[in-house]
């Protein structure tokens, strides 16, 4: 057991840190369009310096770094409070899926513009009638010569209004069992048959969209993996989502907790003292420190298990579920510390408080994650 970085890992971190210090463009401007352009510029800057596809193979424009180095990268960018990158879904999920399941032509065609942010990606999985039961999705794709014709509706498609490509899972064989009849496509968003409508969420903004397809066209060569094997390909995408985001998420919790501590030191608590002198608040702050440490340690344990055995350990399935609980408790505590100001929608805490309600739903509901743990890790019988 050695929880320190090796000299090579330390050198990687130091190089990255000084690069981030010198190049961090700071806070993004207000307004959706301006902010998105800003994120694109930032991603290009990262890519020019070879920091966009950190663990991607060198032959496709990546850095070829180890998993530990990818984890260090994810931690350091959050720590440095850099802006988000524009093409986050393609970098975290779409690209790795094409690397794992795509043809050589697809890798050459799709990977470079992901890194350069020239082509933004979105994810068309969920549907109004297919949330947790994703495999029951109804969007249909029908073969027409060298093309597929797609009709249906998707929902919760982040960045759809900026996207050139959509990772689309559609039903290509309605007669097959529900997991078997699916195919994974890359759909061009720039066609009239695809309509995007923003969804306003409880925070007031619109991160997500609804997607309507009315006989949209996809060339046959844009299938990733094989026809009818879309479920397995989609699972790869979701595994990447859970594995690689864990590091950034746990660091963002640590940073938020540090900020909450600062706030608590300056806020009045019970009996006229500051909030940090309130024993109940102290207990809850300490519990959050402990839980956020668990998030960090589990992320590293999971990584060590992958490096040793090639597969994530049991703690891998726990990370996203646990993170959503910790992040929600953190935001709830922030509201308690805020006192009557908790009624006002005036700062980043009130935003964080509302936004955190989605954490236990997005990317797999807590209930589905518990099912996965119960069935695949503990071996309990399936309910269905």
């Amino acid at each position, binding site marked *: 057991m050695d929880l320190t970085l090796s000299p090579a890992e330390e050198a990687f971190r130091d190089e990255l840190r000084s690069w981030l210090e010198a190049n961090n463009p700071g806070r993004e401007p207000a307004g959706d369009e301006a902010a998105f352009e800003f994120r694109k510029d930032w991603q290009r800057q990262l890519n020019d310096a070879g920091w966009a596809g950190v663990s991607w193979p060198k032959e496709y424009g990546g850095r070829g770094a180890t998993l530990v180095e990818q984890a260090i990268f994810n931690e350091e960018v959050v720590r440095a409070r850099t802006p988000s990158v524009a093409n986050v879904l393609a970098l975290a999920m779409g690209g790795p899926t094409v690397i794992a399941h795509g043809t050589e032509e697809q890798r050459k065609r799709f990977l470079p513009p992901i890194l350069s942010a020239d082509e933004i990606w979105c994810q068309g999985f969920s549907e109004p009638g297919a949330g947790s039961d994703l495999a029951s999705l109804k969007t249909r794709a029908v073969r027409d010569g060298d093309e597929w014709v797609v009709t249906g509706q998707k929902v919760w498609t982040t960045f759809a209004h900026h996207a050139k490509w959509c990772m689309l899972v559609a039903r290509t064989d309605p007669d097959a069992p529900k997991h078997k009849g699916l195919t994974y496509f890359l759909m061009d968003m720039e066609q009239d048959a695809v309509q995007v409508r923003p969804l306003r969420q409880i925070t007031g903004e619109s991160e997500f969209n609804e997607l309507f397809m009315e006989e949209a066209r996809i060339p046959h060569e844009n299938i990733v993996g094989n026809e009818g094997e879309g479920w397995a390909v989609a699972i790869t995408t979701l595994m990447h989502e859970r594995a690689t985001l864990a590091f950034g998420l746990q660091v963002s919790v640590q940073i938020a907790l540090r900020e909450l501590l600062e706030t608590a030191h300056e806020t009045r608590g019970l009996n006229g003292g500051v909030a940090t002198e309130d024993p109940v608040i102290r207990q809850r702050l300490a519990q959050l420190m402990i839980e956020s440490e668990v998030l960090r340690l589990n992320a590293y344990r999971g990584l*060590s298990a992958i490096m040793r055995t090639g597969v994530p350990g049991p703690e891998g399935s726990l990370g996203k579920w646990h993170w959503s609980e910790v992040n929600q408790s953190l935001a709830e505590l922030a509201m308690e510390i805020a006192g009557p100001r908790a009624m006002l929608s005036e700062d980043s805490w009130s935003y964080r408080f509302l936004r955190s309600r989605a954490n236990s739903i997005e990317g797999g509901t807590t209930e589905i994650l518990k099912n996965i743990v*119960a069935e695949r890790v503990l071996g309990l*019988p399936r309910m269905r």
Partner: protein
Amino acid sequence: MNFGFTDDQQAIKRTAREFLDARYPLATVRTLAEDERGFTDEQWAELVELGWPGVIVPEERDGLGLGAVELVVIAEEMGYALAPSPWFSTTCAALLLCAAGSDAQLERWLAPLARGEVRGTVAVWDENSGPAPDHSEVETSADGTLTCVKIAVPDAASADFLVVSGADGRHWVVERSAEGVSIEPEEAIDPTRKLFRVVLSAAPADPLEFAPEAVARAYATIVTLLAAENVGAGQRAMEMAVEYAKDRTQFDRPIGAYQAVSHRCAQMLLEVEGSRSLCYWAGWALAHEPETGPRAASMAKAYAGDAGFRVAASALQVHGGIGFTYEHDLHFFLKRAHANAHAFGDSRWHRDRVADLAGV
């Protein structure tokens, strides 16, 4: 960066699991739970054979010279087996001696302890102690005697010496057979660890050196061991619950197919794995990153203290009525996890310490 055990540590874990599986089946645990002493000389001799009393003792004092990670590995397996044994109390005494023993004390007590010739324990709590483990009411005299009442002292009757804590981090070695030492068994909730009331009436006492930082590190290791026991006990209770949920049928299906049950089991895994990560980290930090050690230890103790009990309680709920019977073995794990949560500072005390150390 590698969050896994070395080959040697894995070998210790494997040996411990196999040995404890073979020698401490639950029928044996039950027999020892009902026995006043709680272990036999043969059982102790086997642990001595493995070198376990002296895991942390330096090689020049006849120990194995290993570190906190190896202790954590053994403690986790001891918790998993729930093996009744004076190993924990003796290890506590060894840790405090290593921290603050004089040369003469190390020669007199530590080396024989490592060779398995003597056993020790720690006497920490007064009748008036609240949740804080550092509270102490001990009267000292000019001629070097101690007068006090200590409660819930583990394995005191079978120990050869006691390390007794006083105010301000001072400690003394008291021989069990000395004049003025009286020891009475207490009714312990957890019958797999024997607790005693120790009354010292002007008992001769040999002070340890005053080394508050080293002593604080020793206590940090002790609480990490209790946390590790709770990882093992929680793991075992979870395994029992999962097995039962697969076998037990109600309304024509295994109860584990109901989410009210299966999600409970998933929650157990979350808490056991979280406890495990914190314990391994604390063990590593105590051995390799001393500035982080105390914080990590308190985090592990607070989290695993709560989690161990919650997991065992949840496992009892999964078992339904059968889990409430004395005949079922589950309650032993519940009781150990509960007792560990309240020993050497409860979760509340350790969370407060975490807040202190973080400058809250």
